[in-house]
């Protein structure tokens, strides 16, 4: 029955298609274009997107941007299922760890030459921010949301425990020592003020790994995961030291799941510069400064550089306008907004040395961190995050032996990397 109807339907469709152009189109009004835009939610970034949409729409009245700010927790589920079922957004944001995966799956449209040529892209953006979005001589994403890791310090709490805000800890040893001094416990020994906020655990163990390990943490070319090395194990032993035992500087049992620094319950905090936006919006009463992130004694400062890129769905109805919108989102004008209002670092070369951006010491330190940064090498998003998170929990909650746990996790991660990159 259904099959018999098909030819009839087909004929009707063709007839309709023939009719459509016959409808008189007014030449003056360009057709209305709707661009569906998804990104993961961040308190500080959502208002900036809203503002940029207003600006873009004012400039191009024929374009409507439909913006969804999806919680980070559900972002990848919603995004990937939508892409797979061809119901995905036109423009969305992906982290650098996912670049290879999505480019290989053929889910993304390359930047068209009439919007920006590869040469123009390479001339405009810092290499660390774009290199992973390049495949076969084409670029598949334009970067924003550049983040390093820096150290946030609650000045009042630090002074209270005898610290000097003018001499922030530069090494892990100093951080450990000061954080221990600043950790408060009740009579039973339960933490009631954390020396270091580790809610954002990714930041802590990533900074540890990237500052301890000299070579690559993940070697994509060789399909190897290298943090089971002595240096990697030293990094995770540091995590164990910070988090377990009577000298721990934080505990999962203290304000479970809460952001302790934002609530004035932690002295130090390793996080992205964009945390500035959240602190300015939601923790107005906290007096804080920033410093370069801690490194092992005797090493030069180093911080992992992480970036998200705006990409365009290969099924986007209007890829050219989608790319124009992305171009606008990553333009100089927009990046200044991102920087000022959210705290995102710029990805444009010309902005790195723009003195007008450095209006205070916090901005200076955040911007300067890019000069000693190295790009994140992780390949694969959710699966890998889960492996590393599990490793953290094994060490911190279960008190598992660091060496064995790290070896297991690194081996597991290597399997994932091999699967994603199609290594033998």
């Amino acid at each position, binding site marked *: 029955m259904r099959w018999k109807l098909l030819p009839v339907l087909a004929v009707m469709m063709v007839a309709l298609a023939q009719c459509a152009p016959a409808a008189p189109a007014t030449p003056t009004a360009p057709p209305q274009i709707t661009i569906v835009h998804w990104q993961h939610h961040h308190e500080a970034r959502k208002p900036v997107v809203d503002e940029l949409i207003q600006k873009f729409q004012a400039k191009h009245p024929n374009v409507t941007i439909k913006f969804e700010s999806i919680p980070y927790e*559900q972002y990848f589920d919603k995004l990937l299922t939508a892409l797979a079922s061809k119901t995905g957004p036109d423009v969305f944001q992906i982290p650098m760890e996912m670049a290879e995966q999505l480019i290989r799956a053929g889910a993304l449209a390359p930047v068209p030459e009439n919007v920006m040529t590869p040469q123009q892209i390479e001339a405009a953006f810092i290499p660390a921010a774009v290199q992973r979005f390049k495949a076969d001589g084409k670029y598949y994403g334009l970067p924003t949301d550049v983040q390093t890791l820096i150290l946030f310090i609650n000045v009042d709490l630090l002074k209270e425990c005898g610290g000097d805000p003018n001499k922030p800890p530069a090494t892990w040893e100093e951080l450990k020592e000061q954080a221990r001094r600043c950790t408060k416990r009740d009579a039973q020994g339960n933490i009631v003020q954390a020396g270091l906020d580790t809610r954002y655990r990714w930041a802590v163990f990533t900074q540890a790994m990237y500052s301890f390990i000299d070579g690559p943490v993940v070697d994509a070319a060789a399909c190897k995961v290298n943090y089971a090395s002595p240096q990697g194990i030293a990094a995770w032993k540091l995590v164990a030291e910070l988090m377990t035992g009577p000298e721990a500087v934080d505990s999962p049992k203290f304000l479970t799941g809460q952001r302790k620094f934002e609530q004035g319950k932690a002295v130090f905090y390793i996080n992205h510069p964009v945390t500035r936006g959240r602190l300015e919006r939601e923790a107005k009463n906290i007096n804080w400064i920033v410093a370069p992130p801690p490194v092992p004694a005797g090493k030069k400062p180093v911080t992992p550089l992480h970036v998200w890129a705006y990409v365009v769905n290969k099924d986007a109805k209007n890829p050219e306008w989608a790319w124009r919108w992305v171009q606008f989102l990553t333009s100089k004008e927009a990046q200044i907004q991102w920087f000022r209002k959210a705290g995102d670092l710029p990805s444009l070369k010309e902005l790195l040395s723009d003195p007008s951006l450095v209006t205070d010491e916090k901005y200076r330190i955040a911007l300067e961190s890019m000069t000693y940064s190295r790009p994140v090498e992780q390949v694969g998003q959710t699966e890998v995050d889960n492996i590393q998170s599990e490793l953290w929990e094994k060490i911190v909650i279960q008190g598992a032996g660091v060496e064995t746990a790290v070896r297991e996790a690194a081996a597991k991660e290597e399997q994932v990397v091999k699967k994603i990159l199609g290594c033998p």
Partner: protein
Amino acid sequence: MGRWMRWAGRALVYGALVAGSVVMLLPLAWMTSAAFKPLYEVMRIPPTWIPQEPTLENFRAVFAQFPFGRYFLNSLITATGITLSVVLTSAMAGYALAKFDFPGRNFLFLLILSSLMIPFQTRMIALYQVAISLRLQDTLLGVMFPWLVDAFGIFLMRQFMLTIPSDLIDAARIDGASEARIFWTIMLPLVRPALAALAIFTFLGAWEEFLWPLIITSSDASRTIPVGLQFFSEQYGTNIHWQMAGALIAALPMLAVFFLLQRQIIEGIALTGMKG
């Protein structure tokens, strides 16, 4: 002695009931109290039950970021749509199964009955596929569609209609009433209590549904209150005081309905046994 024992026993029962009541009300009480406190008071030890520094600031902040009206409307539309559909399809099918003799009746009845054993969670992956192919994702119809018919409702209505004597129907037929009319003006009024019970627990179930909307919605256009609330907390997870204010607002509509229709709700649930 016996008398003394009896009084002691009764005192014990009252004591236990009161203690139980405290536990039953604890989360709601804490939620209400925290919703009116500034953050630092929420985190005070020992906890304060009556806010020392009461504030409405939390509600202002919540309403600025939490499109409660939109979620409420979505919940209302979807729960009402589901209820209407379930009540109508159950009553019609129940009527046919109870009062008509037609080929395939027993087979269909058994089929519907045995489908009660298939939990929604077994079907949800396939349902998601159906929803995608019908382009129902992130729409209100998509939120409603797995619940538009309820095998249990059909079974319930059949059982009730079996108890209604067939003479009434036959008499109406002899008087020349059409089948549709008989259904509408004779059967439905007679099974009103069962219909009301079915409607109440269908509505409550739809209002509370969390897993399916979590899967199928991706924007405020289709989020219902439970997923909207979860979404809000994921966005502003750092702020317990806001979270509690949002939770209180989200919990209020159903509690209000409960206090208004308490007798009907409890009787309806006792009558039908609410599905979890």
